[in-house]
């Protein structure tokens, strides 16, 4: 089945780590480079995150994510290198544009933090099963309705795109032009909308009835099929995360 989630289904130590530990890691190590704006600290965080991704065997999957943001990084170097207020020392000149060292260094720090941020979130996106993540949040008080919306979207959007394909094929078989230039293709989507919207509304209504009779709105305390296993390693990991967080706050306050 097509999936709109980027989750990579593997069995690795990173995948086995419980979602809560991963969320706290992501949040804390995303924040630390901002709390301690030293390049060395950012590099340590980035190195740590990358080695976790390597441990989870998903490191190659971050390449497209990072290359997607290369344009943004490029503009940071361009603007800061040319116009940073502290610019003094000339680094190099190219095509009549003069880049300054201070600006480029500032841009490098910013980019490293940005890449670290991307890698940290990748830990959740690539190596945490969405349903586990949502369930661990629901266990901790996230509304089950909201949790349902999040997890069902991941499954129902691909289903809707299947429906779209079926309707499109049906229209095609009745002689509608769907291929050709951009205008023709855009026009083909108009007769698609009414059946798609109608059928989605009908199935949403049916599904809400089906959820009702399966006691979705029960007022009792919910239970969960899967057990939450917090290993000793995870506890140590959590402690280390907490410790790094506290120490970086302390460092910041002392400045």
């Amino acid at each position, binding site marked *: 089945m097509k999936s709109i989630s980027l989750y990579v289904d593997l069995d690795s130590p990173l995948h086995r780590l419980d979602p809560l530990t991963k969320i706290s890691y992501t949040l804390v190590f995303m924040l630390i480079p901002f709390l301690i704006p030293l390049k060395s600290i950012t590099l340590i965080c980035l190195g740590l995150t990358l080695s976790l991704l390597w441990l989870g065997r998903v490191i190659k999957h971050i390449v497209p994510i990072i290359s997607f943001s290369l344009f943004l990084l490029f503009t940071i170097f361009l603007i800061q290198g040319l116009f940073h207020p502290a610019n003094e020392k000339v680094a190099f000149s190219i095509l009549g544009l003069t880049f300054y060292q201070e600006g480029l260094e500032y841009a490098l720090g910013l980019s490293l933090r940005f890449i670290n941020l991307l890698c940290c979130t990748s830990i959740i996106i690539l190596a945490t099963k969405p349903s586990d993540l949502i369930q661990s949040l629901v266990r901790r008080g996230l509304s089950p309705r909201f949790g349902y919306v999040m997890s069902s979207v991941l499954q129902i959007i691909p289903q809707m795109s299947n429906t779209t394909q079926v309707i499109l094929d049906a229209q095609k078989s009745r002689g509608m032009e769907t291929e050709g230039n951009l205008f023709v293709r855009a026009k083909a989507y108009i007769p698609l909308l009414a059946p798609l919207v109608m059928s989605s509304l009908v199935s949403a209504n049916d599904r809400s009835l089906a959820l009702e*009779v*399966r*006691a979705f709105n029960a007022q009792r305390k919910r239970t969960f099929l899967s057990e939450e296993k917090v290993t000793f390693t995870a506890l140590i990991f959590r402690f280390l995360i907490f410790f790094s967080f506290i120490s970086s706050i302390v460092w910041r306050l002392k400045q």
Partner: protein
Amino acid sequence: MKKVIIEGLSYKYPLSSRLALEDISLTIEKGEFIGIVGKNLSGKTTLCQALVGLVPHFYHGGFRGKVEVAGMNTMNYSIAQLAEKIGLVFQNPFNQISGSKLTVYEEVAFGLENLGISRPEMIERTENVLKLLDIYHLKDRNPFEISGGQMQRLAIASIVALKPEVIILDEPTSQLDPQGTNEVFRAVNQLKEQGITIIMVEHKVEKLAAYADKIILMSEGKIVDYDRPSNIFARSDLKKLGVKTPIFIQALQSLGLDKKYPGGLPVTLEDTYKLVVKEYGNDQN
């Protein structure tokens, strides 16, 4: 023991001027298999939804009369509370999949999680219903990637897991092929053997005639008749009421046997065969 008691039930959907159900009264005994037949818009689905509390709690609208299921007056309980006593399986198997679970196994457990059933019991019930409905081998599959008949059995399993005393099936086989239909009927019959009361809306009258203890015949939101299948399907006004006569009865009627056995014609292939043999002998020539 009476499982379902309906007294003077009338119901009107909001924004509609006509009554969807009009003065319905009936009782259903524990363990019975009740079929509901009638043409489209005769109120069959509304009646089913009134039994589980979707009417009036979900739709609102005008409601009069009393519906009591397993000793609970639907007016005084929420749909979730009623769900433990009475389950409803819908027509389209696809739209009954919650969409938030990734495997068949988790899908069955979804309702149990909502009800706060303890984990060991949840596992036990889930395993049992998966085996009962013969979908245990699919337990790790994605619920959207199984066949229609399997999906409908999954929908039934998800309801049976809640251990209701009454299960309603609203045209459960209308989107299934003959094989899927047989799978569903076999499964439902097994539930009946476990003492669960079954109510089923169905257009496949031959199947219904073979399995049901009694049939409710509906038209224009009213109950026209409520009787044994052999009596209901022998009625001469079935066509006018938009209900097909089972093929066996049609055959016997064309042989003129309906006059000889008024109200007592067989409704299954086997009994029809016996009757024809009795009347005409076993002479193949």
